[in-house]
């Protein structure tokens, strides 16, 4: 029920404020970014994404620190995926999608004229909502990225595949079936395989769009453990529907609502003492 109503709300002209919120309570256009711990990895400044005329992400400004797990939460349709997919420019696939403002990766403009999208995507790995292994063998799935980036030697590939599968906590389960079709794995295994596949190209940053929403709770908790292990080595940005999950795995949490970034803070603070009333409403389950 709530899902239906919020979707309906998201489709109406986004400039109209939500009826339940008086205009005075709208957040300031530029919410104060959380104090970033360490080097800034991804930074957005007044960054917007449009689908044709619809502004799905509205002037977001935030700075995501390196080596941390950052969660993006918010009701569905609020632009989480859109923002995430803007970082590795997957939105380029969608006709009529354009951006404004600035989005940088290590200080380099992601939408700059000299950017090489292929190289960018090598640096920014992505894990999707539904596990999407290729209909190839486990080995070929993991070796796919290294191969397209020019690694040819069998022993080299084997080393990369093993390292990535170990990193994704899957090696023990698949080492005897590396040459079997990946579609024969369970959903949770498939998702970890996708993580291994993303890790195999040695990205700095991992984008995860609701990576556990298609999995059962046990498989989901294994993914969460894995994210925990990746902390420090990789910057992880995870979109999630599930506030408990955000609270469990992330260091920082961004709350989005109707395309806007409402609040961005350390997870512990955002979930205990949110600065914005709308955040409070959302995390206490008053809507969404």
């Amino acid at each position, binding site marked *: 029920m709530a899902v239906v109503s919020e979707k309906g709300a998201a489709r109406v002209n986004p400039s109209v404020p939500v009826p339940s919120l008086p205009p005075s309570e709208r957040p300031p256009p530029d919410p104060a970014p959380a104090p970033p711990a360490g080097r800034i990895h991804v930074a957005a400044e007044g960054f917007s994404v449009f689908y044709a005329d619809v502004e799905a992400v509205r002037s977001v400004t935030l700075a995501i620190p390196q080596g941390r797990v950052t969660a993006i939460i918010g009701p569905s349709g609020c632009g989480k995926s859109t923002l995430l997919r803007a970082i*590795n420019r*997957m939105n380029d*696939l969608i*006709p009529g999608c354009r951006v404004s403002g600035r989005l940088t990766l290590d200080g380099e403009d992601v939408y700059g004229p000299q950017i090489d999208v*292929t*190289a*960018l*995507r*090598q640096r920014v*790995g*992505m894990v*999707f909502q*539904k596990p*999407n*292994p*290729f*209909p*190839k063998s486990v080995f070929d799935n993991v070796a*796919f*990225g290294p191969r*397209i*980036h020019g690694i040819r030697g069998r022993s080299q590939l084997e080393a990369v595949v093993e390292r990535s599968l170990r990193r994704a906590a899957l090696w023990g389960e698949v080492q005897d079936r590396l040459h*079997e*079709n*990946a*579609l*024969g794995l369970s959903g949770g295994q498939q998702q970890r395989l*996708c993580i291994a*596949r*993303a890790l195999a*190209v040695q990205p700095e940053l991992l984008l995860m769009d609701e990576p556990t929403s298609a999995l059962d709770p046990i498989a989901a908790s294994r993914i969460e453990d894995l994210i925990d292990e990746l902390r420090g080595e990789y910057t992880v940005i995870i979109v999630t529907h599930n506030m408990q999950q955000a609270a469990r795995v992330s260091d920082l949490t961004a709350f989005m609502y109707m395309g806007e970034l409402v609040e961005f803070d350390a997870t512990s603070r955002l979930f205990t003492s949110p600065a914005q009333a709308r955040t409070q409403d959302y995390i206490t389950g008053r809507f969404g």
Partner: protein
Amino acid sequence: MQRGSRELVDRAFTGVGLVSIVLLAAALLTLLGPIVLRGLGAFVFRGTVEHRRVLLEQFGRGDTEEVQRELAAARAAREPVYDMIAAFEREMKQAGPAERRAMGESLDGLKAALRELLGPLPGDPDPPLLRLRFGQTRWDRALVKLQSVLWREQYDYSDPTVMGRKVLVPRADEFRGTALEPLFDRLPAELEAMLRPRWTVYWGFLFDRSRDAHFFGGIWAELLGTVYLTVGAVLFAVPMGVASAIYLVEYAREDSRPVRLLRTCISTLAGVPSIVFGLFGLAFFINTLHVSSSKSVLAGSLTLAILILPLVIRSAEEALRAVPHTYKEASLSLGAGRWRTVATVILPAALPGILTGVVISMGRAAGETAPIIFTAAVSVGQPLALWEVFSRPTPALPWNIYNLCSEHQAVDEIRHVQYGMVLTLVALVLLLNSAAIFIRARISGRLRG
């Protein structure tokens, strides 16, 4: 609607569906039954000693001594017939001129019929045509020919109000009281000894060349020609078709005007009558591009390629569109370029669908007649070597079926060849279609894990 009438309507629809399926099956059976049964007659039949002689003398197959022995036995069985003729001819020398003239005509008719049944008579000069040098090779044909030895066809014009009526006159009556009279009892009784029929399985029907315009031998030239034309068409159409499909699915902007126009053109191409493709092939490939100086397998393949191109494009397009979007996203997100994604992820995933379309279009190309009439097909020809396909025309099953059924000078004599060809073509197309099903099941099984 009332519940009762709703159920009635439901039941009526189920009934109509069932009936139409049963009708379809019946139609298929009545169509395929005779094709299969009569077509098999080209491969399995009661072959006479003449068949074995043809195989030995014309194709170098069979046991020489064995055949010689059989021939000697057959000749011994025929001897009395020839003796009777000789005796009759001696009788005639004594007869008066009027009788001699009258009987001479009857004798010539009888001799002609006997030649068709048993081959040249003793003392005949060597006939020019191959078909005249042998007796009947098939027992079923021999029985037909036996009737024309026993009965003479005659037309009765006595009633001026109707056209001449065919009547059969027993030849025995013409020779009553002569030395030839016993022949007409003897011949049916002794025919088996004279021709020695035996159940024969003749695979050579597929792999032998034809001799004397399909009187003897098989259909290798036609079969090979069809294979050349089909494979050639696929070689041209598949790369072009798959490339077009990739362009349409992965690169073209759906809504742009040129792309819409392109799509319309492809649909139109699919609806063009095949004879038009044939004329186009003649006008364009042969007369304009001069791919060969006249008809050739190459020109025919190109023409067939254009015919099946829309089919290939459409099936490939469908197969490409059916590839889950998530594969493409995964590949792109790993830093693969567009072309890389198509080549390593999308094409392999679409392969079963594409192959199915290709094999089905092969079936189509194999069976088309009109496009090759002007561009590739000849009625009589030898099997081509691979390098000859660029310059020479070829016989091919669909065209030669038509040709043998309508333009051959002895249509009735070679029914078995016509049916054999039809069966071969139908089997070829069915084989291709089952291959398509098999490939699809096999590869999509692999894709699903």
